[in-house]
């Protein structure tokens, strides 16, 4: 081992270490920048009025996004009602039943759907619901978000179920437990945390979608009184304010973006908390 080789190797090691460290920092930087900006611009506008008042008419200052906040939750609730059962059961089918050929096609379709641009989803549901109903509606908004959730939840559910070791299924079946009972009481129960994680992350993802809502929920300056009326939603409101001419609205757009980020962040942190390791497994 001659001295020059040794030094060259050492240099390579240090270089790679530094390079990868710098890249890691670069990844985190945008997140920190976003935080910084949102807090700087939007935090000042966060007050009680923001959460409790309706938007003021054009030109007037003050007011809040209460209807948009509620609207987002209404849409997410509908999305969950549609997305969770279909997605989870679809995932169960892919993992536990079905022939390999059929499963391959279903997975292929789900992966394609996951890649479809959200605006396309919006237009499709516009054609399917908004046009026949002759109105933009909260229902359509919930439906589009729900449909977007389905392939997402299906794939994560399938993956999580596949992680459940086959040994548990075998053990349950060997006890004379029927297959469907095994799936529900043993497999799903074991994978439950993972399934819930998948659902929550899908919800967090669709919570921020704007484009599909443009064609379905449309937005509302006021409260929607039933699901067949257009409804306000945070991304829509943020967009409307951001492109408007008024400073006060810009302020509120920042605030809205901040609240939305906090919502998504809370879901993610909540997920991490839920999936923490409570038991130490003895080897």
């Amino acid at each position, binding site marked *: 081992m001659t001295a020059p080789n040794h030094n060259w190797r050492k240099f390579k090691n240090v270089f790679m270490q530094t390079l990868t460290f710098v890249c890691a920092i670069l990844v985190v930087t945008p997140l920190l920048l976003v935080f910084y900006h949102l807090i700087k611009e939007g935090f000042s506008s966060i007050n009680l009025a923001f959460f409790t008042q309706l938007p003021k008419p054009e030109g007037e200052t003050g007011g809040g996004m209460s209807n948009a906040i509620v609207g987002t939750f209404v849409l997410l609730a509908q999305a969950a009602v549609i997305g969770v059962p279909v997605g989870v059961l679809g995932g169960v089918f892919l993992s536990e039943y079905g*022939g390999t050929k059929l499963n391959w096609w279903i997975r292929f379709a789900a992966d394609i759907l996951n890649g479809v641009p959200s605006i396309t989803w919006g237009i499709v549901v516009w054609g399917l619901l908004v046009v026949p109903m002759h109105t933009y509606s909260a229902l359509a908004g919930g439906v589009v978000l729900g449909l977007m959730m389905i392939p997402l939840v299906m794939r994560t559910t399938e993956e999580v179920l596949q992680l459940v*070791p086959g*040994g*548990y*299924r*075998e*053990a*349950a*079946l*060997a*006890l*004379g*437990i*029927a297959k469907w*009972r095994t799936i529900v*009481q*043993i497999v799903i*129960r*074991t994978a*439950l945390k993972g399934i819930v994680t998948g659902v929550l992350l899908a919800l967090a993802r669709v919570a921020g979608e704007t484009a599909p809502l443009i064609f379905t929920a449309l937005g509302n300056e006021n409260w929607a009184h039933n699901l067949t009326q257009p409804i306000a939603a945070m991304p829509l409101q943020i967009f409307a304010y951001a492109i408007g001419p008024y400073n006060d609205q810009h302020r509120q757009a920042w605030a809205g973006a901040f609240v939305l980020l906090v919502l998504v962040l809370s879901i993610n942190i909540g997920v991490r908390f839920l999936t923490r390791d409570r*038991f130490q*497994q*003895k*080897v």
Partner: protein
Amino acid sequence: MATDPNNSAAALTVRNLSVFFGKNAAVKNVSLDITAKAVTAIIGPSGCGKSTFLRAINRMHELNPDARMEGEIKLFGDDIYSRTVESVTVRRRIGMVFQKSNPFPTMSIFENVTVGLRLNGMRDRKMLAERTEESLRMAALWDEVKDRLNAPAISLSGGQQQRLCIARALAVQPEVLLMDEPASALDPLATAKIEDLIVSLKKDYTIVIVTHNMQQAARASDFTAFFYLGELVECGPTPKIFTSPAQKRTEDYVTGRFG
């Protein structure tokens, strides 16, 4: 132990059993009697079909779409592959313990032991508690866990977990217990406990154990069957197989010349 069609002491009579995976025959035309309330060990080198044979007994191959079965297996005279018999019924009469212990991780010790009963409809708490104690005693685990039945099952050691799985299988009160290399993942002390357990269980259950450990077969079984390349080469009382086997292939395997 010959394949005697009138052997009334046989718990399981296997006739011309073949198991195919696609075109490949993993078990070829095996006929065998398993004596009731005795321990039968199945030995042979890797890939000889012993696990495949074992799993055919409780219809576990039905989980595999590529698997195909020919031949007949009767449990105390009942054809277990008959179309009128559900696999669920068969598996309540024939239990199985696996190589890697697999207590359900989301359940406590008590819940694990009673899972076979509860998920088949039993609700009577008193009965469940009684069965739990009975099964854990039979599995030589009761004294170690009686004060913490609600603790998570995965908090037990490897050897304890395996005994828990045995208790879980026994709680359903099967007639036959199949064991697929139950001690191969355990240390020698835990292995010895499992072997003692097997010997004590045989007065109430018929046990079939697959093992690659010949010493274990010699210690714990009454009868031994030697499988090679999917065929049953020889079967007989354990002392005879290990002191003076009739077939050369058995002799070669047992003295370590191959396998």
